[in-house]
């Protein structure tokens, strides 16, 4: 544990003693801040225009119209920015030779991977943490947003960010070129993001897919050809689909488990990849 924390702490130090953390948090704040402001202005305009009409006034809800769209935007900004955080994690260690220090020290590969991941996760937490100021800002005004669904939304965005980070770390472990690690992480994350679009055209059922893979054996065993389609499966794997309930303020274990599984799987694979590099040299 001490080793993991030492590695994570060193990572965090590096973020905050170099311009990296400030540039990333700064850009993140500028973009999300503008989006928040734009929604807020539109909301207050609507309030001014229709505030006198009791019917419309009931429809106006600061959670639905300002905060919920914010989470969607935060997700998109994450999609672009997390590869920039994750790309250097292991690739840079390999490139500069500091990997030799880490992997000849009495620490396990898992400890190194976990330490690196926790360090980057902290940066993510800092990025999200500063945006908490937005809902707090609204609270100081007359509008009183419901905080519980807001916090659930934040949890969702953070979990999704952690998943992106896991995928990025895995790709960073495969190369010593940071550009490849960054572009690769972005490509894979984007792919996972847009899975629903692909899913739409994948109407073939999983059962019939299995049937053709097994050369008709599936059908002969009377396992049935109906059931969920490939598209349904892909939809379940989409990063953005699992965020939707969080955005609405619904805390569903299905989604929490999904994101945590992605994190666990990618950390596990990263550990395997790094271990295997000892054999290749």
């Amino acid at each position, binding site marked *: 544990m001490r080793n993991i924390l030492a590695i994570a702490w060193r990572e965090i130090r590096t973020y905050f003693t170099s311009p990296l953390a400030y540039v990333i948090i700064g850009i993140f704040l500028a973009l999300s801040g503008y989006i928040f402001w734009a929604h807020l202005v539109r909301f207050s305009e609507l309030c001014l225009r229709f505030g006198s009409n009791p019917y419309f006034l009931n429809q106006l809800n600061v959670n639905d119209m300002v905060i919920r769209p914010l989470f969607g935007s935060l997700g998109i900004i994450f999609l672009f920015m997390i590869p920039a955080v994750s790309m250097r994690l292991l690739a840079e260690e390999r490139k500069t030779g500091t*990997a030799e220090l880490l992997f000849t*020290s009495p620490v396990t590969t898992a400890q190194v991977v976990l330490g690196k991941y926790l360090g980057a996760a902290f940066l993510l937490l800092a990025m999200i943490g500063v945006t908490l100021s937005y809902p707090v800002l609204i609270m100081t005004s007359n509008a009183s947003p419901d905080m519980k669904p807001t916090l659930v939304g934040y949890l969702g965005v953070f979990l999704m960010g952690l998943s992106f980070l896991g995928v990025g770390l895995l790709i960073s472990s495969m190369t010593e070129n940071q550009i490849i690690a960054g572009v690769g992480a972005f490509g894979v994350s984007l792919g996972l993001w847009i899975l629903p679009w692909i899913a739409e055209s994948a109407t073939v059922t999983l059962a019939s897919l299995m049937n053709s893979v097994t050369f008709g054996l599936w059908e002969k065993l009377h396992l049935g050809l109906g059931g969920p389609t490939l598209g349904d499966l892909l939809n379940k794997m989409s990063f953005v689909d699992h965020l939707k309930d969080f955005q609405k303020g619904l805390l569903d274990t299905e989604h929490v488990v999904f994101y945590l599984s992605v994190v666990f799987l990618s950390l596990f694979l990263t550990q395997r990849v790094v271990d295997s590099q*000892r054999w290749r040299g």
Partner: protein
Amino acid sequence: MIDVSGLRKVYGDRPAVDGITFSVGRGEIVGFLGPNGAGKTTTMRILTGFVAPTAGTARVAGFDVQENPIEVKRRIGYLPEHPPLYREMIVRPFLRFAATIRRVPRKDIASRVDRAIERCGLQQVAGRVIGNLSKGYQQRVGLAQAILHEPDVLILDEPTVGLDPSQIREIRQLIKSFAGAHTVILSTHILAEVTMTCNRVLIINEGRIAADETLEALEARGGRTRRIVLRLARPGGGIEDQMRGIPGVLDVRREDGQEGVFQVETEGTPEVSERIAERAVGQGWGLLEMRAITLSLEDIFIRIIQGEAA
């Protein structure tokens, strides 16, 4: 302290290390000598657990590198060819970090870091960013990182590469001061380094051990000369054949470019030299000079690398 047996590492289909066996006792300073690409770095990386061997075993302090990597790594201090430094970090925090992951007990970290800083002469730069230090200081930070946890075994990969002469001297002094307490393996392709710091030499070439000797034994090879240089005033034709007739003479070669100079390959006994001298005087060749060639370490090294018998 270190036992290596039948070590092999193959990259693709090219063996980098091809069946190396040796052992190093406690307190020895051993030099790995060999041309670039001979397999020195790979051997060291296997010993430190950074790279896994294809075949063979390596044991450090009784622990197998593959089976007990953590125990081995606790006992090893390693300075790779490129010192593994986080360039954006400040020297002292970096050393504290290195001490932590090297499992120095928390209460000892401050004192060990101070000690390493002092031993490596880093007092003046302890508060500076590593990336801004000169190559010499960076190398010293690398060395400090390797000795922090007071390891039994110190493995240094080309510790003086890229330093200026005075820095090289300081680093060598430092390495020498480790003798006795630590077992040191250092690699180099500079012969002088070995003669100045080590008491034993392992010459590695093309992934194999070409020689494993103490420095004295290696130097003694140069003394057992088998070559004699002759300079004659009247080097007529047929002299080579006449000399080849002397019992104990194996070969005679006329040196190109130098008038009247011959190289004589002998069996190496004093009697042969005597007979050659007698013949030269007796035949009236005008013996101007006759000397035995003692090989320098450099020559011996090159001959070993080239596979000749020195």
